Every structure is written in C-alpha cells, then in structure tokens.
C-alpha cells in the first residue's frame, strides 16, 4: 500500500465543488471518553460515549458568483445542515477513494482574514448536525 500524498482532494459544500479554492482539510470523527471506573478498581476504566464529527477546511476567498463567499456566507445564517463531502482525490468514490460525508453546520465564517499582500484564507469549521455522524461511502 503506497503512502497517500494529498494533492488533488475533492471538496464539496452543499453540492458545490470548491476543491480549486481550498488547500487544507481536517476530518475529525470522534467519540466521547466516558469514565466507568467503579469502587475497587485499581486502574481507570473508560468506554466510548457519544460520537461527534467535524470538518475544518481552509478556503481561499473569492467573491465571484458561485465561488467561496457565495457558497459559505448563506450557511452561517442557516440552522439547517448541508452535505459536506471530502475525498482524497477528485476521482469518483470507490473502495480506494472513499468519501468522508456528513451533514454539517457552518459554525464560523471569517470573511476576510489576512495581512497586506496575503491571499485571504478562511478556516471554515463544519460541525456534525445529524444522527448519521461521519460516514465513509465508497460508491
């Protein structure tokens, strides 16, 4: 199995492909750690609790119609989750190119963030909003 190098990730927000406006993605699929240590125990015992998921994507800002601002800005005022999909490559979903898919709410939108001469980037944080959590479809 070759080590995977990220060069051509696929990123879709509410169906809109924004791969060519992003350069970093972090996918987090987590479970709470629940302490179940009882009297008499000599070591701490834990089990898994509720699941959670989060995707953080760094986008380049673009105010042109149909690009970054037009896609993300309406989501910050919406309280209904939208589908966020990320794949390792832009090829179709497959067993060797699985998607990370969740329904998420955009929790922050920093429209402008940078210094003089910088490319303006946005760290968009999508938090899971459905019981399905993070799924990994391959088709």
């Amino acid at each position: 199995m070759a080590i995977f190098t990220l060069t051509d990730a696929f990123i879709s927000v509410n169906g809109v492909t924004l791969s060519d406006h992003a350069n970093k993605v972090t996918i987090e699929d987590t479970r709470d750690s629940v302490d179940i240590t009882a009297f008499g125990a000599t070591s701490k015992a834990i089990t898994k609790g509720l699941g959670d998921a989060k995707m953080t994507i760094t986008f380049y800002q673009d105010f042109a119609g149909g690009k970054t601002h037009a896609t993300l800005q309406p989501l910050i005022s919406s309280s209904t989750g939208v589908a966020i999909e990320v794949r390792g490559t832009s090829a179709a979903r497959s067993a060797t190119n699985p998607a990370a898919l969740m329904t998420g709410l955009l929790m922050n939108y920093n429209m402008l963030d940078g210094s003089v001469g910088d490319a303006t980037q946005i760290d968009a944080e999508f938090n899971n909003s459905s019981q399905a959590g993070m799924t990994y479809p391959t088709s």
Partner: protein
Amino acid sequence: MNTYKVMLPILVNGEHKQGDVFEHEFDSPEDEEANLTSGLLEIVPRTYKVVGPSEVFETPAGSELEKALTMTQEKLLLDGGFLERVEPKKTRSKKTEADE
C-alpha cells in the same frame, strides 16, 4: 414548492395514499425534514441546470442534472445562483396537433 411521494400506508393531508405523488410547500425546513426522516415522504427528483461557474453535484456549468433537493438545499443553490429549475417540457397530444 416541491414534489413528494407518499412512502408509508398513511393518508397524507387526508387525500394522498401510499405511492401517490403530490406537490406541497412545507411551512419550514424542519417540517419537511421531519416528514422525510420519518420515511413518510420522499422527494421526487427534478431537473436543474447548473448556471454558476462552479460544478454542482459534480455536474459542470451549463449541464443539467436530476436531483432530489430539500427546501434548504434548493433555496441555497437557487438563491446563490448555482442552479435554476428546468421546468418539464409540456408534451402536445396528437389530437391537439391534428386539430391545429
């Protein structure tokens, strides 16, 4: 306004039975979501044209796609200038053509 199909053996709005397709506008996205997640209704896909510069559902600009979109998804994509609805072409009956 969206088109829905009744999926369960329950009478919807007092007139639509299982398998029926009907048009309806829910008061809120939450109402729609509740009906979809319960399995009572399913959105009937409709045709959209990608009008913005970005690919939408991996469909390039200028192309058409068929998709079942929730109220929220559709509003965001229509208002944002990503998609527009393609209304189904009305078919003319032979009788009408012959009459003309």
